[in-house]
Each structure stands twice: as C-alpha cells, then as structure tokens.
C-alpha cells in the first residue's frame, strides 16, 4: 500500500487566492470590502457587519501574534502525519485584529517551553512543489 502523505488543501473559488499567496510564503486574510474587518476563514456573509456581499479581499498580514493555547499532537487521526508526530499546534491571535485566531504548527519542536502570551512569527512549511502551509515560530526573545 502506498504510504500516506500529509493531506493537501484543494483550493476552491473562495480559497484559491489564499493558497496561491501561501505558495509564495505570504499569509493573507480575508478582509470585508464593506466594514474592513478581517475574517478567517472567509464566509459567505461577513460575520462582523453581516453584509451578504462582503467582496472579501485577501490582504497580506504580518503573521505576528501571541500564543493563546497549544497542544502536543502525539497521535494524529490523519495517518498522513504519522511521520511527523509528535508536533506542536498553536492557537495564535494575530496582531492585526483582536481575537483573530489561526491554528498552525509551531516549528520549534516539542521540547521548547511554552506559555500563553509568547510571541510568534510566521513560518511556512513547503509540503510539495507549489504547496505551502502557514505555520509559526517563536520570536527570538531578547
């Protein structure tokens, strides 16, 4: 049997721009053209102003943020990650907007001590040619 690999995102009408930018190592977030609020993931109605025509534009963001929570994935229910466990997932609040949260892997490994409020910066994992997945790395602490 063929060994399973990490699952690939399949871009659709709503997500194509996000994944194209990600492949160039740029993190973008959907911005509502009516109220300018950021939403992740995008929706068909803006969850902030409830416009039915939000005309979301994927806007580059810094990818800087703080850790709100984390977990160490010692087992994944996606067998494509069997060669990657254990790994850390972080729940990150981006600096661009209060409570704008993303979840991604922390590339620093599982032994580094973590605390709520730790600053992180953007990183990318290139999982295949032309496919990159946003991740995070701890900011160097001065």
């Amino acid at each position, binding site marked *: 049997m063929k060994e*399973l*690999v*990490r*699952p*690939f*995102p*399949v*871009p*659709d009408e709503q*997500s194509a721009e996000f994944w194209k930018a990600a492949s160039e190592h740029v993190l973008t977030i959907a911005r509502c053209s009516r109220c300018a609020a950021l*939403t*992740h*993931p995008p*929706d068909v109605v803006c*969850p902030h102003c409830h416009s039915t025509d939000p005309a979301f534009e994927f806007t580059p963001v810094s990818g800087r943020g703080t850790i*709100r*929570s*984390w*977990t*160490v*994935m*010692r*087992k*994944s*229910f*996606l*067998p*494509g*990650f069997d060669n*990657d466990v254990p*790994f850390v*997932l972080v*729940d990150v609040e981006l600096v661009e907007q209060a*409570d704008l*949260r*993303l*979840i*991604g*892997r922390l590339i620093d490994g599982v032994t580094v001590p973590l*605390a*709520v409020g730790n600053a992180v910066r953007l990183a990318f994992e290139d*999982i295949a040619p032309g496919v990159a*997945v*946003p*991740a995070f790395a701890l900011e160097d602490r001065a």
Partner: protein
Amino acid sequence: MTGRFTAGKQVAIVGYAQSAIERHSASPLGVLAVETARAAIADAGLAVDQVDGFVTASLFPSAGAHLPEDGVSLVSANWLAEHLGLSPRYAAGFQGFGQIPGSVSIAVNAVASGAADYVLVHRALHNPRGVYHENPMQEVRGDRQWTAPQGYFGPLAMIALAYNEYLQRYGARRESMAEVLVEARKNGSRIPWSYWYDQPLDAEEYLAAPMINDPICRFDCDIPVDGVAAFLFTSAERAKDLPHPPVYVAGYASGVPATKRLPLHWPLDDIMSVGTCLAQRLWDSAGVKPGQIDLPQLYDGFSPFVYFWLEALGFCPVGEAHRFVEKGGIDSDSPTGLPILSGGGALGNGRMHGVPQMLECYLQLSRRAGERQRTKTTLGLACHSSPHYGGAILYSADPL
C-alpha cells in the same frame, strides 16, 4: 418578557428502554433501534400504533472516513418509524450539537402544540470497525482545508486546546481531573448496563496513561460503543393513566450561535460566554435557581466539559472547578457532594452522548433507580455537548 415557558411541566417522560452498551454489537444498529423502541413503548404501557411522533438527532459524530448509512451507522426518525411499520403524524430530526437536549426540546414542543400525542425520542450510536476518528484523506476540501493541512484534525485536538487554555489561565493541574474520572467510573462500575460495569478506575491509572493530544489522554475521552436509548414523551394529562410516575420537563435552553471560528476551534472564552447566557435562559425558562437542583447531571464526553459546565451553570465560581472537584465537591456518595456524575456519565458508560445524563434524571426522578435510588431527587438537570453549542433540560418530579 420573563423567558418562563408557558408549557413548563405540561409534557413528561413516561417510559424508556436502553439496549446493551457494547463495544461492537452483534446486531445491526437499526435492529437495536427497533427493538429498543418497542421495549420503550411497552415500558410506557403503550401499543406501538399509539406512537404518532418520532424525534431524534441522527448525527454520527466521527471524523473518520466511514460513510454514514441510515439503519447501519445512524438511525433517523423516519427510518425508525418506517421500520416499526408506522406512518406517524410527526417526525423530526435535530441538526445541531447537543443532540439529546435538542431532540427533547423538539419532542416537548410537538406534544405541547398537539402535533403528536406520544413522541418517541431515540438516540442510536455506532462504533465502526477501525480507529473511530481516523481518516486517511490525502486531499482536503471544504472548510477542513483551513486546518487539516496543518495537522489540526479531530475532536481530541479541539478539546485539548480549550483544556490547555483552562489549565494555563487558572493554574490548574491535570491531577485534579483524576477526581472526575474516578467519580464517573465509580458510578459507571455500579451500573449493570454500563460498558465499564465492575471496572472502576483509580487516580494512579488515570495519571499513568500516555498523552494523545496534550493535555488529553485516552481516559479523558468516552469510549465509542454501539448502543440505543429511547424515551416516550406525552402530555402531563395523558401521563396520569400510564404505569410509571411521570418526569416533567420544566424548561430547557440551548447555546446561541457562537463566534465564527475555524472548524473545531472552540476557544475557552467562546465556551464560557455563550454557556453563561445558556444557563441564564435555562433558569429563566423554569423560574428556578442553580441551588434548587438536586441532580445536576453534567456532560462529560470529554472530561474538561465537566469543569466548563460546573462553572457556566454557576455550581462553582469561574476558574474554580478544578479546586471544587479536588475538595470532593462532586462525590455523589457524600451528603455534601453535588451528584453531577451519579449516572456515570459518558466517561462511566460509553459514548452514548447525553443519554446517561438524561437517563439518570429519568430513573432518579421517577423513583425507578433501584439500588441506586437517591433520597432527595425532585429537580434534575441533564446537559450535553459544550456549553456554547450544547443544551440543557430541566426535569421535575413534581407536577404543575
């Protein structure tokens, strides 16, 4: 507007049945459902053709690759009615989380409105062969594309993030949760139909289990099972002519829509802010206060839900649930303990969703709990799922 229900205590549970709770049943799920439904109808002193309403929530709650099939891995209300040979006046399915309170509220509304006279609420849960949540997907479409490529997948990671947020924010220790597991399994071990019958768990064994998604180990998760439960609802008036003491529905509430999030992202603040509103609407629906509840059966499909419900419902201050359980606050054998898991919960019975909570309320309030009968059980509460997506029902042994 007070939020008080005009139909409070006008609808009652009048009978029940539950199948064996097994890791893998020898019978197909649909067969278990038909047999359990017939047993519940007989228990209520009714004939099958008197039942004119069917309600369920049929969701098969697995992230795995198993293709859900009616009658095999789930059982819808229509499927059950049809296979009992009936064409009921009313059949409905609840779509959201909090499947048990959601179904109960639909059944209560159906009886109160006159849409049906005798409503059967059932829940059928299946454990497919293989690892329950395992999914060999190689391509991710739809909303999972925002999380699965990163490796965020399945409900254990979901509850792990919320639980770790709790531990960090309140300086709580995993050791405190041993009290929850020991209590659930102690009570489950006394229940003959439980998967964990005669198998209590001690704190050492709980704490020795390896992490799966930190800080969640396998004992923090209920075990998947095959099982079906069914309950009969009718009006308080009709209940007078039936064999068992009725247990009245005094009120209910469910979670309001929470903040738009990534799939399966349940931050602690979402859980608690919506959960606190749910609790207020629940008390308002029946005009009661938390201190009046004799039997608050809290949902525990993942152990941290016990903390979240204790705090959202106001049984202890926010951030204090870990200390509350450490001090023996949930020991159902102690006269001062709050019996939140006296029915064993999901951790002490198996993955029957909110059935153990509902069943314990029914058995204790109808005085049908046998050797486990508690002395003072007048007002019960049964909740299910997370406080921000789930729901809760208030049950009363006293009529209007």
